[in-house]
């Protein structure tokens, strides 16, 4: 895996929702190397507070134009500063980093489960997966958020022509309840499925449990604090089962963020 660090130029920076922005960066080696599920570490400013860079999943990449984009919600100091970056300025960028989603070719149906701001890597995955589907293979998107206006990446998913089922906690759109209930219903349908999920860790735990109980192949992209994103600090530890029946900590930034569900030990 080759990673690159460079000052990437902002070529587009647009609002995509109430609190949601898409940032398009020019960084040809990263755009060319990016695989769905991978992320970049961004450093838009040289501040001591916030100190760390932050990880962002790649939403889409255009190798020919040498650009890729991320989708982020403004939450706190870091994302506030990021949202101020004008077109033409540069953002120090390191990537592509981490593991990626691997299509399970034996499955007839690929179920992508997105929770809120966890949608971007699945948008990228769906976009790269769709053109490779054989006849009889399909993509099903399940997306959940607290409210309708917090659903992320719906335009991307719809553009692929994939079936999309939505759940909101308050029922403002689609099914009222958790996206994991939609998953349970989908897994009850008699079609051989594989699951790929990204969202809050609580959601991923529920997804992992539903899938492992049924023997459904499942990959999840975990969230963890990432001081370095490069494998040197061991701050992003994720507990995993080892082949000898024991347990060890792997790094979410390097061996992850995408793990096989049955590998992860939940505590």
């Amino acid at each position, binding site marked *: 895996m080759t990673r690159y660090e460079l000052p990437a130029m902002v070529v587009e920076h647009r609002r995509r929702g109430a609190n949601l922005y898409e940032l398009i960066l020019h960084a040809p080696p990263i755009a060319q190397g990016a695989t769905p599920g991978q992320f970049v570490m961004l450093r838009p400013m040289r501040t001591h507070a916030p*100190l760390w860079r932050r990880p962002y999943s790649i939403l889409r990449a255009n190798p020919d134009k040498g650009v890729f984009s991320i989708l982020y919600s403004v939450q706190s100091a870091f994302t506030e500063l990021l949202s101020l970056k004008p077109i033409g300025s540069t953002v120090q960028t390191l990537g592509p980093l981490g593991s990626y989603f691997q299509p399970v070719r034996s499955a007839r149906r690929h179920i992508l489960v997105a929770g809120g701001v966890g949608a971007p890597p699945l948008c990228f995955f769906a976009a790269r997966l769709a053109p490779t589907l054989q006849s009889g293979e399909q993509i099903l998107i399940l997306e959940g958020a607290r409210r309708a206006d917090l659903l992320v990446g719906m335009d991307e998913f719809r553009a692929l022509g994939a079936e999309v089922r939505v759940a909101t906690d308050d029922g403002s759109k689609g099914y009222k309840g958790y996206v994991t209930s939609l998953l349970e219903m989908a897994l009850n349908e008699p079609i051989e499925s594989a699951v790929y999920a990204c969202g809050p860790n609580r959601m991923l735990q529920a997804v992992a449990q539903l899938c492992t109980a049924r023997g459904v192949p499942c990959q999840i992209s975990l969230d963890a604090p990432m001081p370095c994103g490069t494998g040197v600090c061991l*701050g992003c530890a994720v507990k995993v089962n080892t082949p000898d029946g024991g347990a060890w900590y792997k790094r979410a930034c390097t061996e992850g963020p995408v793990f096989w569900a049955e590998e992860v030990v939940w505590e």
Partner: protein
Amino acid sequence: MTPDLSVALGRLRLRNPVMVAAGTFGYGLDYRDLVDLTQLGAIVTKSLTLAPRMGNPPPRVAETPAGMLNAIGLQNDGVEAFILETLPRLREYGTPIVASVAGETIEEYVQVAMKLSRAEGVAALELNLSCPNQARGGMEYGVHPELTAQVVAAVRQATDLPLIAKLSPNVGDITPIAQAAVQAGADILCLINTVLGVAVDARTRQFRLASKVGGLSGPAVKPIALYHLWRVRQSLPETPLIGVGGISSVDDALEFILLGAHAVQIGTANYVQPTLAQEVAQGLAAYLQENGIDSVTAIRGTVR
């Protein structure tokens, strides 16, 4: 004329005074694709223990204002794996390798030090004295002069390599500990390791680290590191010192050198800017040139 950046810390000779700190640069090879390892003064490895160590449960890190707390719990693959898998490739770069030695017991420190001393390519040992002492309920070795002396003396017996004692800042007066380490046979002192701290999440009403207590590092600790370094410089004027804590620029490194550090280490800043150490070395050269000074040793300790 290009200024002379080389420094001698007793027998340990470095091409420049900018090292990378333990636990912030992996085992040494991890950044080889992003950093020119041949431009570093020295590379300090992650602390090594006798057997592989799993480390603490997550969350292990929390960002704090201008700093971070960590409680990694010495996760590492063990000294044997380092010697077999990393050292042969790392020594090819020709940059001095300082192996960081950790232990839960004095016996473990000695065993790890012996294995590293027999391996080819280790330039010096750095004793991580911030390890929890099992016999004393997890208290750091380095907060106690006698315990510090015991560890240093035991390892001194076991190795001929230059011995660096890395001191804990979690003490009122660091000078008795610094003196104890030198009397017990440490050639060089390195300071500081992380500063104890806690952080609470007001939303979840829980500690932000699973182990509750962690070590603070980053720009926030720089004045503490400078203070301890300055105190030790006064009490031990002859001992080579390595300054570490919060360095993230050339000026930060200069502060330590002006107060008497022979060399500096860059820690947390490596996470944010992996090339910082090599840039600081270049920046030191530029600073000396601009000021018409021909060697870095000429400015060492000139602020008293």
